[in-house]
């Protein structure tokens, strides 16, 4: 009677290359990186579902970015400078500003998973994003 692990592999579409892995953190709301603590990666936006949660070294799953280009880009860049940016990002609706943010922060960014990421990935799953190969691997320990 041990724990069993479930492993799922999905194809995705590379936007910013590289590989990253870590615990999944799922947000159903758009994210503004400027509204996180640049030193720790903790979400400070009081009305956000992730308030108090930490983005540092997670694989972040979220619908889209938000807010003006300057603050969004500077926000993710500061997290990366302090080594508390996400390890990789899986997004649903991408736009120019998010691409630029991930590019200058050097965070792998993918979209178009072959299945809805919000159905498949749960906070706490272990997720590997290989943007170069276009593959996302999800491992979940089920008791």
């Amino acid at each position, binding site marked *: 009677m041990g724990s069993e692990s479930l492993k799922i592999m999905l194809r995705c*579409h590379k*936007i*910013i290359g590289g590989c990253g892995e870590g615990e999944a953190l799922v947000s159903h709301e758009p994210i503004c990186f400027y509204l996180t603590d640049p030193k720790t990666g903790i979400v400070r936006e009081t009305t956000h579902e992730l308030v108090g949660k930490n983005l540092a070294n997670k694989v972040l799953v979220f619908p889209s970015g938000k807010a003006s*280009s*300057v603050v969004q*880009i*500077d926000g993710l860049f500061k997290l990366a400078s302090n080594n508390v940016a996400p390890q990789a990002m899986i997004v649903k609706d991408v736009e*120019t500003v998010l691409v630029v943010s*991930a590019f*200058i922060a050097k965070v792998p960014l993918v979209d178009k998973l072959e299945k809805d990421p919000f159905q498949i990935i749960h906070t706490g799953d272990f997720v590997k994003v290989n943007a170069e190969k276009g593959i996302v691997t999800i491992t979940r320990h089920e008791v």
Partner: protein
Amino acid sequence: MYLTREEERILDGELGEGTQKAIELLVAIGDAYDAEKMIPISRAHAASSGQEGDLYFVELLANGGARCKVPTSTNPVYDIEYFDRLFEVPKDEGEVARRVMEAYKRVGAILSWSCVPYMAENIPLYGETVAFSESSATPYVNSVIGARTNREAAQSALAAGVIGKTPNYGLHITANRKGTVLVKAEATLKDEFDYTLLGYYVGKQIRYGIPVLTGMSRRPSTEEFINFCAMSNTSGAVSMFYMPGFTVEASTVEEAFQGDTPGDKITVTDHELEQAYEELQTTSGKIDFVMLGCPHYTLKQIEDVARLLRGRKIHDDVAFWVCTSATAKILAERIGYVDIIEKAGGHVVVDTCIDEPCWIVYKDKVGMTDSPKCAYYRRFKEAIVARLKDCVDAAVKGEWEVKV
């Protein structure tokens, strides 16, 4: 995305590391949007900002030997020497600003330091393909001028300026320039501030899309268009809009919707604009500053300030600032407007914007502005938004009483 032989060579770094980084970013954006290829642009505007993310990218390009291939203008930063004489700007922040300005010079940009470059320093023509970042610039260029740009970030616009190309996606494609929501303006739109409120309200309501506005009883002025653009693209993401008859690309509502029936409709009456105004009256009483010129004031708006201030004296406890471009200030000096404003105790400052760290001295202060965009940045304790005339009167009196 298909790349030409020359683009491949740039991507392989054969033309230097600076252009390589620039094209890498453009390719990533092209991949994100499944663009088929790159298309040439004739000019760009980089919304430089004097912040760390901005510094990183422009230095990456400058240090890698990149130079702008097409005219590329720059947004406000700030002149650290000017502000150091007036008040203390944190040394590290000032150093970022100095390095950003120096790096844009090295990449061969037009050092306009203006957020309304389409007024003087870098003016697209109808039908031009360009890459213009900055909230008022993107919709103004798309709608009032009828050139084509996406909602760029500073870095994507700079990369496009360096390569002279942009991926073909979004608003470069005619089918994507279709109106998405009909806005019936039944409100009385009598002055620039009414267009500010209209933009603020429309952006907030639709959040994202291409509004088609009807009901304007006359042609909006340049400044009214600028205000509508800046506010709707700050409270929402409005990269383009139509006012058939007054904007260039569609002469009728049907044309703006490319033959389709508008799905969503909203109506804006005086009531909605009054509500928007009331929402912006966050406090009243004594004020510490008045901040005008977000976006940068045009020559006409500086004239308005001079007319309102002529022969008056700004209250000793109130700092009075007008932000504008270097080109507008030269004319305002020559004509005599700057002299009138300075005699009244105000300042006309160039090359900067209210969203820069040079204003840290007002962090805990209460002030007034005629721009909700200025208030939105939250660089001050409170920034009450009101008409220019009310801002000037309050500056003279030293306090503001809400007028409802």
